């Protein structure tokens, strides 16, 4: 009997009616780990990626609705959730977050019975502070919805992440349940660098800046790093790439996310399960206000109790897959199977994220791999 975590792969192809998206969801729901979650406790938080307005390759609401209904039909109460954003975009305030969900087709009163809430409450600050083990975070603020629910199912839309490498289960577990204060802690290692020469005064960044660190200047934007809180709104929104993240902070950010993820997992009352959707795998995360073409074909769904195993499997699959012509990986010349497309796009070592995650006992890369037919 192996101690390795199980990772299940539902292949991306659908060649007959018993391989539709519906039957894929049925297969995932039929896994013994899901059955175990459904048999314990009363409330299951269903974590999704609510994407920024403008990002159009998000996971179709159908998958979320289907999972919601299956959970509800067992007698368990599902609560759909995601955190608000640290930068001032369309998911910054509770009001805008709700409007964004509706605009994306998440019909809150209709299919979700109103059970669709911010993890940190309408104010994004509803939570408690929990001690963190590790090198960087002394403590982190976890949203009440995470610590108040019995179980958590994390449905991650897998993409590249500019600072983590892979944006998957660890990313969602580590950042997706934090209050604004919690996110600020994790972001505190990041320093923004302003390349004035690239600025053409389009002023897009200003509306994203919550602190006023960016302000209008005589001919260029003015940046005051002293009041910057590292929210990355300018980084993701600047069309000229004038704001960059100083590289020294990136490995620390990866490690901080792991520490936050570990603390989040530790304070979940009962069980957690991770479902990674390798569907529309874009170079941007759902937090970006735009999405470029996916850079690999849809590769299916990976699921596991272990966030490290499921993320490592996701990463490996993306590397081994051929890239999609016409996408950014063709520009970067990494269309071939086996080429690290994520490293080419982001410049970041996903392996470091995974190694530190193993070091902190968040999970293991080694797994038993099951293919569902």
């Amino acid at each position: 009997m192996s101690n390795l975590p199980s990772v299940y792969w539902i292949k991306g192809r659908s060649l007959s009616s018993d391989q539709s998206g519906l039957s894929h969801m049925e297969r995932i729901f039929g896994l013994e780990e899901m059955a175990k979650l459904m048999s314990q406790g009363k409330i299951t938080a269903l974590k999704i990626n609510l994407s920024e307005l403008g990002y159009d390759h998000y996971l179709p609401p159908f998958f979320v609705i289907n999972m919601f209904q299956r959970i509800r039909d067992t007698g368990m109460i599902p609560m759909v959730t995601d955190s608000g954003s640290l930068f001032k975009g369309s998911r910054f305030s509770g009001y805008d977050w709700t409007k964004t969900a509706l605009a994306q087709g998440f019909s809150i009163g209709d299919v979700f019975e109103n059970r669709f809430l911010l993890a940190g409450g309408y104010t994004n600050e509803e939570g408690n502070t929990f001690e963190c083990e590790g090198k960087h975070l002394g403590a982190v603020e976890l949203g009440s919805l995470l610590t108040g629910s019995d179980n958590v199912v994390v449905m991650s839309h897998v993409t590249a992440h500019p600072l983590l490498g892979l944006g998957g289960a660890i990313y969602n577990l580590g950042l997706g349940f934090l209050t604004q204060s919690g996110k600020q802690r994790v972001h505190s290692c990041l320093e923004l660098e302003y390349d004035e020469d690239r600025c053409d005064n389009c002023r897009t960044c200003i509306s994203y800046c919550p602190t006023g660190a960016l302000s209008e200047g005589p001919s260029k934007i003015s940046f005051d790093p002293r009041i910057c809180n590292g929210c990355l709104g300018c980084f993701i929104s600047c069309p000229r790439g004038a704001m960059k993240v100083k590289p020294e902070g990136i490995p620390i950010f990866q490690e901080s996310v792991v520490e936050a993820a570990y603390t989040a997992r530790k304070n979940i009352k009962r069980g957690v399960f991770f479902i990674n959707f390798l569907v529309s795998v874009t170079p941007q995360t759902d937090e970006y206000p735009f999405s470029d073409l996916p850079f690999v074909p849809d590769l299916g769904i990976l699921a596991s109790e272990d966030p490290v195993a499921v993320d490592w499997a996701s990463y490996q699959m993306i590397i081994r897959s051929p890239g999609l012509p016409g996408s950014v990986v063709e520009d970067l010349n990494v269309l071939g199977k086996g080429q690290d497309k994520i490293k080419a796009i982001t410049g970041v070592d996903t392996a470091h994220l995974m190694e530190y995650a193993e070091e902190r006992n968040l999970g293991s890369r080694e797994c038993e791999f099951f293919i569902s037919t």
Partner: protein
Amino acid sequence: MGKSKLLKKDPATLVQPQGEPTPAEKKRQQEWHYDVPKKAKVWFTPAGATNWAEALVCRAKDLFYESGMDKIIDKGDKVAIKIHCGEWNRNMCLRPELVAAIVEEVEKCGGEPFVTDTTTITYFETNSRTNAALLTETANRHGMNPASLGAPFVVGDGYCGEDDIRIDLPEGNILKESYIARSMYQADVCINLAHAKGHPFTSFGGCIKNFGIGSQSKRGKYLTHLSFWGEPEEAIGWPRVQEDKCLGRSKCPYWKICEDGCEQHAIHITDTTLEFDYDKCCECFACAVTCSMTGHQAITLHEEYFPLNQISMMDSAFGVMKSFKPGKIGYMAYAVDIAPECDCFPWADTPVTPDVGVFASYDLIAIETALVDMIDKGPIMPGSRAEQLGLKPGEDKFKAVNGYTPRIMLKAGEKMGAGTMNYELITYEPKLTPDSINKWQIRPYPAAVEKAKEYDIHNIARSVNFNDPSRRAGTPTDWLKGGKWAWTQFDPTA
């Protein structure tokens, strides 16, 4: 009998106690002041409608502007619209469109509205709003969701009902602090949008209850309900248990509901009586409510609990007032479906009086006084509890139906400086004009001929011969009085 052993420290490592105000906030609370007017204005528009301009929704929108409520909202203000979303199966809580009516105007003023209500005092399923998971579902049942409201519906006191800020109340009568739901506290403006109805504990539920109970977190609700106050023998902070009145398993058909309803297992029913463990009691009121259905009075509340609860509720309501900058709270109330019991009940009895109308004010005590005065003046609704008690118009309806006058909380509020019972009623009647017909319609009425053409739908009126004899028997004259098939053949009263 010892004190209950609740209030253990939460095992989570807390850096800052939830709800503790910052030093800046403490200072703001100390400096907060409300200038009580000698006479407060209360705007009122009566219910009843015979044309477009008089519809209740139109009256409510008109009153919003007549009272100047648009002026308290600055562009970008977060506006909390506090309502009572109603318990499951309660059919007399506010209709969503009565709330949406105000949401729409708040948006037009540039505000960012959200509609909110809080979880109940209990932690388990003695009712259907005890935590965020159940409150969202129950609110949805009543149509309180973004689709119907046009604004987010927010669980005010957080996922577990503990997201709050503490408000100091040195002026409080009984309570010296209260805890406001944090999503309301962080709003810039509050519209206290109440539904006027009775309540068996507090006599009346209007704007004061909307703040004093409905805007409190669970911490605040326990405080306001006087839970664990004094000794069990005093029976104010605990249910009053009279074991000799319990019929026991052998004679009471509800014994199992009573025993099972106590989540803390404080109640054990024997064959002939009951045993009650005060150490375990968590003041959820489930046992008192259950026993009240039996009529045996084994577990009840002390008669004088109710007036004390009015006073403590007024204290808490004042705490909510203090959370907002002076001039940033508007009070509105729909005095319609005025049932004798509260929207927190899973049923609704016949209203005590026909619909009265809509009220608006900036003084909490004034609007509440006007509400109970006008309800008392109203006729006695046939078939209601008020009629059973033989009440006459003008008599204190809620005192008769619920045991105590609702004016106890009003005087308690006046004493604190929360407002004045002295009000000037400004009655507003919409005037029917060509403009007022269209003011609040979704499309202008009547639609001009040119507008009809915009739809460009084939009009069958002119292309089908409806007069063909194969379609209708005879002519109208055949069917009029005196005709061969006169309609009077079908009239049993003719």
